């Protein structure tokens, strides 16, 4: 099976912010800690010769169901929201292989940029209830948070660290094509 650029009609596709989500998961102890960003935005620009994906999430909107922790995440120990209020992502390398999708691009966290690759599934395009084309990208990638200076950790009394360095980012992106 050949690899092609995204099989969506050319145009500007806007992120449906209600039906999309940007989440992260960090292993700790024997479990995993989950969080999401409430405020984000994104665009998928499809041209005849390729597609570009850009997105941004607001650090202040992080939701972890615990106010103390949410506040700690805003601080210089973690994201330093005052100095770096946004997380950013951009890619112009999107490859489709059937329903599998691979996106290579640049992620920026706490002012540090790194090239990453995210993989997942693409569905659509299909017309939504208003008759506009819609498509869904489910993308996952794992990063080392310490490469971005998000390095807080604590020694456990019995040895080892409280929190993993590896963070999995899970996005569910639902785009609607501009009329």
């Amino acid at each position, binding site marked *: 099976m050949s690899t092609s650029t995204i099989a969506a009609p050319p145009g500007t596709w806007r992120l449906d912010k209600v039906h999309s989500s940007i989440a992260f998961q960090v292993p700790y102890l024997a479990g995993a800690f989950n969080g999401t960003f409430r405020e984000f935005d994104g665009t998928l620009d499809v041209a005849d010769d390729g597609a570009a994906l*850009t997105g941004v999430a607001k650090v202040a909107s992080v939701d972890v169901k615990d106010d103390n922790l949410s506040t*700690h995440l805003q601080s210089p120990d973690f994201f330093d929201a005052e100095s770096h209020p946004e997380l950013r992502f951009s890619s112009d390398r999107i490859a489709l292989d059937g329903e599998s999708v691979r996106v290579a691009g640049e992620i920026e966290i706490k002012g540090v940029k790194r090239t990453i690759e995210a993989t997942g599934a693409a569905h659509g395009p299909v017309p939504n209830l208003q008759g506009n084309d819609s498509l869904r990208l489910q993308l996952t990638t794992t990063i080392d948070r310490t490469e971005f200076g998000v390095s807080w950790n604590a020694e456990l009394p019995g040895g080892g660290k409280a929190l993993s360095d590896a963070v999995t980012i899970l996005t569910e992106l639902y785009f609607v094509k501009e009329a």
Partner: protein
Amino acid sequence: MRVLAISGSLRRDSHNTALLRAAAERVPAGVELELWDGLKAVPPYDEDDDHESTPAAVTALRSAVAGADAVLIATPEYNHSVPGALKNALDWISRPIATNPLRNKPVAVIGASTGIFGAVWAQAELRKVLSAIGARVVDRELAVGQAAERVGAAVNDQELLAQLGEVVDALVAAVREREAARSAKQPLAA
């Protein structure tokens, strides 16, 4: 620019307070360093008191921190850790956590002890506590050991005075960096 200096020692002839007095002499032009002397009046932390009627000493402390651009703390070491009175004052300042006046504020920690280690463990714990509160902890250390000889009632050791000046400079630089970052904030846009 205003720097609030807090000594973790209540003792009249405290080496840590002497360090802060010496620091006040080392601040660059345009920077004012104010030594806060209200630590002994801060009562034990009780969330009920904060909800019903915040003690006047606590209100004064919170507004002193809020009115400062940076904080310089000098801590002794009691039983390998931060003195209780200092930790208690920080606990008061930290509530409510999301809006506490130490949030994002540049803070530098120094310490003196009469032993050879210069309160390094207390300083490390204090940095951890300040980070948890959300302060912008300056990555500089000044561990003044054998303080009875090196500090005494006033600091005359030129090398120590120079090191103290470097910590103050790093703190001032952190304030300037913060101001620059705040003015360069970008709006939410894709």
